[in-house]
């Protein structure tokens, strides 16, 4: 196996990005000493191209572009097993949230568009209705992802069981909910919130 030389310095480590992730997540990235407990317990590890401990290592080595462009961060289920078991109190679940936010805000390349689509529709649903409208969420997801037949057999069954509501009422306080979204956008525009 050919080994390429790697030069480590404060420059290659890109401390700026590490500090940004640490500020967003409220957790240290640098404290990780690569014991691998997070990956050992991760239920999503087999679906990821890079296991959780390697994500942290990439950050420590300044290779954050690889992390943001990959699918691993979008395949994290937020089960918090890693955070629970880390001997160094690295809050990896919060770091994953911070990385997804960085990737989401940058609108850069990502290999996992379906999970992002689901997230986006879920959040749009809150802004439009206040509460989740499961039927619409699934239907719009299928249309927008081009999987028109996904779970087709499930729909009628759930409707017969009364598990899907055909009609959905908006919250009465929907204007207040819109204000929450608008005020957050205003804070960001003024640079007063991440």
């Amino acid at each position, binding site marked *: 196996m050919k080994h390429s030389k790697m030069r480590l310095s404060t420059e290659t480590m890109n401390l700026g990005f590490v500090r940004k992730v640490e500020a967003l997540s409220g957790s240290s990235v640098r404290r990780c000493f690569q014991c691998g407990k997070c990956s050992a317990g991760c239920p999503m590890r087999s679906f990821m191209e890079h296991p959780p401990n390697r994500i942290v290592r990439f950050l420590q080595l300044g290779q954050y572009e690889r992390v943001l462009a990959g699918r691993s961060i979008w395949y994290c289920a*937020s089960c918090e097993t890693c*955070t*629970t078991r880390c001997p160094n109190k690295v809050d990896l679940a919060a770091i994953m*949230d911070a990385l997804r936010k960085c990737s989401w805000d940058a609108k850069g390349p990502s290999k996992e568009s379906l999970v992002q689509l689901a997230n986006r529709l879920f*959040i749009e649903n809150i802004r439009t209705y206040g*509460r989740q409208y499961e039927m619409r969420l699934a239907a719009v997801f299928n249309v927008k992802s081009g999987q028109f037949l996904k779970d087709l057999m499930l729909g009628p069954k759930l409707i017969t069981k009364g598990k899907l*509501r055909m009609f959905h009422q908006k*919250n009465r306080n929907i204007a207040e909910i819109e204000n929450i979204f608008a*005020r957050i956008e205003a804070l960001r525009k003024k640079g007063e919130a991440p």
Partner: protein
Amino acid sequence: MTPAKNLLNYSYYPGCSLHASAKEYDESTRGLFRALKIGLHEVPDWLCCGATPAHNVDELLSLSLCAKNLSLAEEVGGDLAVACAACFSRLKVTQHRLADNEEKRRQVEYAIDGKVSFDNKVKHLLEILAKDFGLDRLTAAVRKPLEGLKVACYYGCLLTRPPEVPELDDCEAPTIMERVIGAAGAETVTWSHRMECCGANFTLSRPGVVLKLSGDILASAKAAGANCILVACPLCHGNLDIRQKEIEEASGQWFGMPVFYMTQLLALAVGVAPAKLGFDSMIVNPLPLLKEKGLV
């Protein structure tokens, strides 16, 4: 529904699923709490907590949606009873994070145009039953012990994590579900996958994940000799119950494993009429098992 008649009173946050795909969780919760004389007063105009999608990409939005719900709950008064494990975790995390981070709290208070409420505790239904109401009183209320059921108590991810937040029970070896359902006379099994992730909201974006992870959970429960699974989360229920047939087809294994909300079985035990517990809403029909054990 005058509060004076109740032993305990809570504000109640059902969460979005309990109004549609998990309506049997809502029905059985209300039935159980009414039978135990615990008042649940629904928070008016509550909104989605943001669940996983919001905190995944926008922490400030997630904290603000939860803080708004907490302030709506304050108008009702009392500690906040939460049924869904995910809503419980989000609401609880919000109070925890905002209590010791002044900068985030200021941002959230601007976003919701009001103060963040810390006075009332966020409690999962299990916590209310086991700690506030008490297992002795629960046992005393049982009219039909759940004899013959071998229950695999499934905690999933968010009832006990992250460790410093939910305070429900031990974060790696909890026993609260076993104690609660045991108080109603059921036998519980020891099994390996009680805290493994079911695949959660990948059910929408990447259902293949759910088929694998939930398949492992069903197989583990079956291997341990369980004849049903007990859950306290609508998403876990959806993955284990609604997708069970698909999992069977994909894995070539047959499970036929009814998946109950814990309130369904507890309500049955304290004498609530089975017709009011939404057993007919479940995809894997639980009635053959319940009839065999003489419970319906």
